[in-house]
């Protein structure tokens, strides 16, 4: 590849005592690209992204951000390098307001010395306008995040990451607990983030969601990379095969019959999604020259 990848890991391994969670995994992510990370439960997806986001240190291997080797000691280090993560279960603090959640850890302040204070008005206005850019109308930024739906919550977390200048956005199963419509909302933001030039790492168990927004697909299996494929190299059905493993055809055929049942619904999702993606991108285009 001609350009330096935004983010690259080379031959990463991670051991938890005697458990080998990751074994010799390599992967790259480029700007304006959605990299889907696929794999069964326990394949090591969350472990890999925890290394990328500074929660864990790799036991072995190299980690490069924009071509330079890095060694993160905390999530703060990763954030400072523009790597923002929306976690599977821990995205938001339910009893805190949207505005407070939005700026948690990077609070805007005004005033000097002992009178330096949290600029709540700026926080509220910004949270509101950033959410509006993503197409969600927040009437009251002081309302607790716990009152939002799952999809809206994920959207706040994504909007926050984008606002704070993330170059790489990591999403761990953001659509797992969501209904069709809410998942569509989140997928639309994933596409928007890509349109803004971010590199996105998107973890999901749902091949339809992956196929709708993914440009490339890395498949993990029992802690190892099973391969990285571009969209042209992989049909949806092949992807389902890969995700469940070619040697588990029994399980697969059972699963496929399940998918057949859902196919009508899936086709409909794709259609809706294609429409909303177009809408999203056209909505975004005139603003794409916006600076930082």
């Amino acid at each position, binding site marked *: 590849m001609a350009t330096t990848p935004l983010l690259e890991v080379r031959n990463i391994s991670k051991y938890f005592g005697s458990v080998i969670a990751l074994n010799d995994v390599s992967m790259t992510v480029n700007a304006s690209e959605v990299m889907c990370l696929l794999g069964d439960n326990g394949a090591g997806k969350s472990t890999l992204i925890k290394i990328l986001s500074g929660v864990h240190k790799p036991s072995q291997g190299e980690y490069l951000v924009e071509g330079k080797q890095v060694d993160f000691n*905390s*999530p703060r280090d990763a954030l400072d390098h523009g790597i923002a*993560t929306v976690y599977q279960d*821990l995205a938001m603090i339910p*009893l805190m307001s949207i505005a*407070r959640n939005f700026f*948690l850890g990077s609070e805007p302040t005004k005033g000097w010395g002992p009178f330096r204070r949290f600029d709540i008005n700026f926080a509220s*206005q910004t949270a509101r*306008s950033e959410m509006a850019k993503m197409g969600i109308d927040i009437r009251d930024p002081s309302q607790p995040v716990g009152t939002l739906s799952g999809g809206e919550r994920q959207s706040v977390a994504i909007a926050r990451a984008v606002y704070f200048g993330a170059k790489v956005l990591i999403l761990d199963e953001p659509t797992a607990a969501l209904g069709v419509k809410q998942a569509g909302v989140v997928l639309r933001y994933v596409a928007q983030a890509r349109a803004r030039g971010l590199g996105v790492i998107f973890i999901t168990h749902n091949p339809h969601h992956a196929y709708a927004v993914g440009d490339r697909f890395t498949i993990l299996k029992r802690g190892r990379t099973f391969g990285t494929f571009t969209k042209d190299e992989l049909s949806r059905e092949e992807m389902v095969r890969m995700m469940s493993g070619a040697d588990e055809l029994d399980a697969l055929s059972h699963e496929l019959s399940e998918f057949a049942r859902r196919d009508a619904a899936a086709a409909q999702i794709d259609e809706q999604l294609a429409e909303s993606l177009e809408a999203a991108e056209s909505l975004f285009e005139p603003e794409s020259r916006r600076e930082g």
Partner: protein
Amino acid sequence: MASSTLPKQGDERVVQAGPLKRLLTRPELGALGGAILVWLIFAFLAGNRGFLTLQGTASYLEVSSYLGILAAAIALLMIGGEFDLSIGSMIGAAGATIAVLGSVFGMPLWLAALIALFVALLVGFINGTMVIRTKLPSFIITLGSLFILRGLTIALTRIFTGRTQIGSLDQLPGYDVLRLLFGGSIPIGGASFPISIVWWIAITALATWVLMRTQFGNWIFSAGGNADAARNVGVPVDRVKITLFMATATAAWLVATIQLTVVKSADTLRGTQQEFIAIIAAVIGGNLLTGGYGSAVGAALGALIFGMVRQGIVYAGIDADWFQVFLGAMLIVAVLVNNFIRDRAEKARR
């Protein structure tokens, strides 16, 4: 700002929350209602026996002020997701430290008080660090320090003085400085309001400002709301919690110093059970036992209720034994009310 150019089509399911509805989701609401109710009850029972006079008011405000200083700090710590059961023992320890340094080692009392403050900060730091390092519940760690501190205080005071109480502290050099800061009172209309009430109000205001208007306040809510999520966005949760433990120990020191100055003596048993009463006041004030939600004003209202009942019972001529019955019942009712209000806060705008 872009917000003025937003499309206003919105979502038909969103209902704008009015100011009244918003008030109903405040954590202090239950305590405010409780305070008014308790005041009315004693105004009725003891109104003609002095409860309503300025001096009566000053007397329950003084009781409330000691507790309120503790409760404000405890509220911050509880919002940050931890407990401190050692503050009662810390009161005894701080008082004994000042008295021993002054009477045995001949140190000016103001300097002794400064050193006691340093000791308190150290105890808070150790409590916090132990909780973070061991990952044990702070309930357990500080229950341990409750006994360790009290035991150390009694043992060391006895070694140095042969007694467990030290009196006549106003005869010692440096007492004037303490009296100026902690022992004065403000005459209003013939009644005298002790300066501890001013400390109480100032500390409640400071705690409220920190919670609502500073970055650190946002971190406190997040540390108690979901520590892992907070860490993941870069909040230094461990530092926040250790700081809060240092704040509760400092509040205990302040109460100890004020009491020592007012009564001119130290007693190694002083502050016994204050930790529970302060936690009850904070809970009555709407601070959740599970952390992440609450207010310092609520804790002040909880302390006010406590003070009014404790003095009101005396004015009404009721046997003081009933006070504990009230305290326990109030705690249970308060938790039930809190759960109800919290649920409303989460659902108010659905």
